């Protein structure tokens, strides 16, 4: 083959449509007779519902229906548990999933209580003010530690506790090595993550066709197949009666996975009840309280080191805030537990966590999905040990890296995909070396920084490392088909939220079929187009769906060769696929377009031979035995104004290894977006709750996303450690940019503010918080 598509920096197929406003988003769906929904949401975080009076709302012109929990009959039930507890001995898990509309008691501020359906969204919102709900407010459970005290109010009274889960995992025997340690570092770390703040909020449109008995749902979900199956089950329909379409979605980042959100299950049911299409589009004020967050953990962690800085073992006990319900199981804290191990050869590990119910928005994965919290703990422990042992911070990491000859490396704990956490492949030192060279580390600390300090400037450097577990199962599938026009159709079941699937997936098929990328049409997120699948999450699209496409495209390639071999009466090994043609090598006149060949493979007369199938088409599946592990280094140079504590990032570098790269341009975009969210998490974004469980900054005016002016240019470089777990050798990259930014900030800011004996043990920071931490450190020094 002379033209390569795989691995090329190709511009995205989907961008002309997206940039000129010709793509379908859920809010673009506009159907005749469509009604609009709005929700009364609890203003209290924790309260008994005494009475709901909807009579005035029903009298308002244009209001079609109003529902409270009791109106739902048998349809009212807690949502499905999406991820069951892991197969780890002695695991405690108290399942409490969200209900469609709160009955008796509200458990977080923003929980829906009443659904209004009207001729327009304006009328529906006007009617919300007509509805009177009497509440008996209770004390809210906000603080994780207080939630576990004997006299804490209970969120789910029947449990008799606010504990949602408790999991202990061990490797080796931490206590036995403790006496041998030259140094033990013990600290309390707190790490808060925010909300995903996708550009597009959630939305659902449902249409019931009573003549065909079919329901169509347009949904901002990352997992349309799972939603199709679940809705069919809830509504008593067969899967073939339900079509879920996840069109273009303006960002997913986790909270849109497959939540069976209250609105997501109510809108289709109401559309059937009323026999009219119903639309609900979440607004930003709703998004801040009703779409899941990730939020915080508190780690009491210690690590034992030998005198050379080698980690003998790590002991970590942490609390995880799961919000009012726990429908997504323990994915987030399991990720945190795994990521404390990082890319280090840690032989002894004891980790236990307690997940705690609080009267706050539900917690589920958001880009990084708990990895940030774990990476923060281990990277900070290493920094503190390096300082204590007077070892360079990059050297202590180097000494602890898992050596390349130890892969596959078994961490001996269970990961979020319920199989032992085994790193498939990796080679960390070259990544570190590359980063040191590109950020000019040694020159900076030896020459540049002393000069800047002499000028009174506060400029610091940071360098941290991380792994990213990606590409977990169960499986994805794909159908690849040569159309009679010669264009190639690639269909898969995952949803798409802007990752460039229409290009990277096309590149995989193009490579196999010798068809230019712009002649390949990718379809995602329509359950009528592809029946099977799981969804887009956990950095698994390229790995799992990508390899399914690879397998299916390879099957089509075989079929093309077979059909063409008969057509030309030439052996297969003399044929070549090139630019949408198949030809006999070195015989220019013996050439046929794939479109023509596809027509010949679907004859209108004569027979398709027994044992063969019509057309140039194949469906195949890929299910990895376990996830593929990416890795990387982030480095940054940052300047701080020591008086105002405002920051300026001078340089930002990511050296990243995700195996074979399908499209470096798209990969850069993934990294850039992740770093932007990581910077937001580290220094700008913070969900501020008061003692009553009220979110105090639920607007973009007060929830500060980093803007274009706050995110620096990001330099990227790549290592390539091929994954042995899939034929393409790829690993996921969706979360890499976001994961290690917190500890990077902490380290670089400590370095910049070198004249203060600082220990930054928490994220997020901002100017105010940094000022307080500096004051505390100065006061301690006195």
């Amino acid at each position, binding site marked *: 083959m002379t033209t390569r598509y795989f691995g090329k920096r190709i511009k995205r197929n989907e961008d002309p449509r997206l940039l000129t406003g010709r793509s379908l988003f859920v809010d673009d769906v506009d159907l005749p007779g469509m009604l609009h929904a709005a929700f009364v949401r609890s203003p209290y975080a924790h309260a008994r519902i005494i009475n709901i009076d909807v009579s005035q709302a029903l009298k308002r012109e244009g209001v079609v229906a109003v529902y409270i929990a009791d109106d739902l009959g048998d349809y009212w039930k807690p949502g499905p548990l999406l991820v069951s507890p892991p197969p780890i001995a002695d695991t405690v898990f108290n399942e409490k999933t969200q209900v469609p509309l709160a009955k008796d008691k509200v458990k977080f501020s923003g929980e829906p209580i009443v659904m209004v359906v009207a001729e327009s969204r*304006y009328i529906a*919102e006007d009617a919300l003010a007509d509805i009177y709900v009497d509440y008996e407010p209770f004390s809210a459970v906000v603080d994780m530690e207080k939630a576990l005290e004997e006299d804490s109010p209970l969120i789910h009274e029947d449990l008799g506790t606010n504990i949602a889960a408790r999991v202990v995992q061990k490797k080796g025997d931490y206590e036995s090595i403790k006496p041998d340690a030259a140094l033990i570092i013990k600290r309390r770390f707190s790490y808060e993550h925010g909300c995903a703040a996708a550009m597009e909020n959630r939305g659902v449109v449902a249409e019931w066709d009573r003549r065909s008995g079919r329901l169509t749902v347009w949904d901002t979900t990352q997992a349309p197949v799972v939603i199709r199956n679940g809705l069919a089950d809830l509504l008593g329909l067969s899967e073939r009666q339900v079509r879920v379409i996840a069109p273009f979605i303006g960002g997913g980042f986790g909270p849109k996975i497959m939540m069976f959100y209250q609105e997501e299950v109510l809108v289709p049911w109401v559309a059937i009840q009323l026999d009219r299409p119903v639309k609900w589009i979440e607004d930003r*004020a709703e998004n801040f309280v009703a779409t899941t967050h990730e939020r915080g953990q508190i780690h009491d962690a210690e690590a034992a080191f030998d005198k050379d800085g080698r980690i003998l073992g790590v002991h970590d006990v942490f609390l995880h805030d799961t919000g009012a319900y726990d429908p997504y199981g323990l994915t987030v804290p399991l990720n945190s537990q795994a990521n404390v191990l990082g890319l280090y050869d840690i032989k002894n590990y004891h980790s236990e966590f307690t997940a705690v119910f609080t009267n706050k928005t539900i917690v589920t994965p958001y880009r990084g999905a708990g990895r940030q919290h774990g990476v923060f703990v281990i990277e900070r422990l290493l920094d503190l040990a390096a300082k204590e042992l007077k070892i360079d911070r990059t050297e202590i990491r180097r000494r602890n890296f898992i050596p390349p000859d130890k892969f596959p490396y078994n961490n001996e704990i269970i990961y979020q995909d319920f199989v032992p956490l085994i790193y498939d492949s990796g080679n960390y030192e070259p990544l570190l070396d590359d980063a040191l060279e590109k950020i000019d580390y040694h020159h900076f600390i030896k020459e540049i920084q002393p000069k800047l300090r002499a000028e009174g400037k506060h400029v610091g450097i940071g360098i941290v490392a991380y792994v990213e577990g990606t590409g977990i199962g169960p499986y994805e599938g794909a159908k690849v088909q040569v159309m009679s026009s010669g264009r190639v159709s690639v269909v898969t079941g995952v949803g798409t939220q802007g990752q460039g699937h229409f290009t990277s997936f096309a590149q995989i098929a193009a490579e196999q079929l010798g068809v230019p990328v712009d002649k390949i049409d990718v379809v995602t997120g329509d359950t009528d187009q592809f029946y099977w699948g799981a969804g887009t999450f956990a950095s698994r699209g390229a790995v799992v769906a990508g390899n399914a496409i690879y397998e299916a495209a390879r099957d089509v390639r075989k079929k093309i060769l077979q059909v063409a071999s008969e057509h030309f009466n030439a052996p297969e090994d003399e044929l070549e696929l090139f630019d949408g043609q198949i030809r006999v090598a070195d015989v220019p006149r013996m050439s046929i377009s794939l479109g023509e060949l596809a027509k010949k493979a679907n004859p209108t007369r004569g027979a398709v031979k027994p044992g063969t199938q019509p057309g140039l088409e194949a469906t195949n599946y890929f299910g990895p035995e376990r996830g593929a592990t990416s890795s990387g280094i982030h480095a940054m140079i940052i300047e701080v104004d020591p008086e*105002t504590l405002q920051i300026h990032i001078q340089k930002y570098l990511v050296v990243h290894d995700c195996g074979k790269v399908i499209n470096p341009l798209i990969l850069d975009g993934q990294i850039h977006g992740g770093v932007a969210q990581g910077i937001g998490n580290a220094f*700008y974004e913070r969900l501020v709750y008061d003692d009553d469980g009220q979110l105090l*900054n639920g607007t973009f005016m*007060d929830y*500060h996303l980093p803007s274009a002016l*706050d995110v620096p240019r990001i330099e990227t470089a790549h290592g390539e450690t091929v994954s042995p777990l899939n034929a393409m050798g790829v690993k996921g990259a969706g979360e890499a940019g976001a994961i290690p930014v917190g500890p990077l900030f902490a380290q670089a800011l400590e370095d910049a503010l070198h004249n203060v004996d600082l220990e930054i043990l928490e994220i997020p920071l901002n100017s*105010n918080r940094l000022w307080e931490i500096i004051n505390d450190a100065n006061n301690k020094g006195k």
Partner: protein
Amino acid sequence: MKPAPFEYFCPDSIDQALDLLSEHGDEARILAGGQSLVPAMNFRIQQPAVLIDINRVPDLDYILEEENVLRIGAMTRERQLEFSDLLSQQAPLLHESVPFIAHPQIRNRGTIGGSLVNADPAAELPALMLALNARLKVRNNSQERWIEAPEFFIGMFTTALEADEILLEIALPVMAERTGWSFMEVAPRSGDYALMGVAALVTMGEDGKCEGAKLVYLNAGDGPLEAKEAANILLGEKISDDLIQSAAEHGSEHEITPFGNVHASPEFQRHLAQVLTKKTLTQAVRRAEERKQ
């Protein structure tokens, strides 16, 4: 986030607008640039029954100089202030501060009059009006009156404007001789409301002593706050770093009452006020000395 129902009028003369306002009074809100009002309506924090859009009323946007007085029409967009050569020469403090107001897209629509009438304590323009000794011309359908800036800003989102009055014009004296200026603020991100902001003006006498000083803070209380005692510390003195430091300490400790918010504690706001007072006074003094030569 849809506004509650409202009636909308779009008059094309100021008399029509004033008649409508007189008719609807408290029920009505004037729509100027809409950069604060419209979001507040979408949040249903504001639910005016009547909206009177004065964007089609002619002759309300201008920047003129007459007899050492700058006259600025109330509907002048913030973007026009930003690009005005006249302001850059005659009111450099105002000119230099405008880019701190939100983002270009907001300044394209936002008006000087709208911002002043909204009287957000964290906004830049009210503080600048105080610093610049502005007078504000307001009118109802029977009479016109002038209000001095200190009397105009009564409190948080509250002004001396009556329910039937519209702000028409802002008048500022051109900047005095031998006067230096400075405006600085600290915001979490570029374009955000500032955690703290300071406007400083300093006039230096021929003898090298301070003849006049003015310090105004934003987001430091329930309206723009002038620190007169801190400014007095400088009066009649040769300016030194120590003197500036004592003015900064006095102003930030005794003359402001910051409330704090989710981004900054009152203590941090006071700290920033001190840092910014020091920086702005230093810059203003330097500029005054440069302009002397």
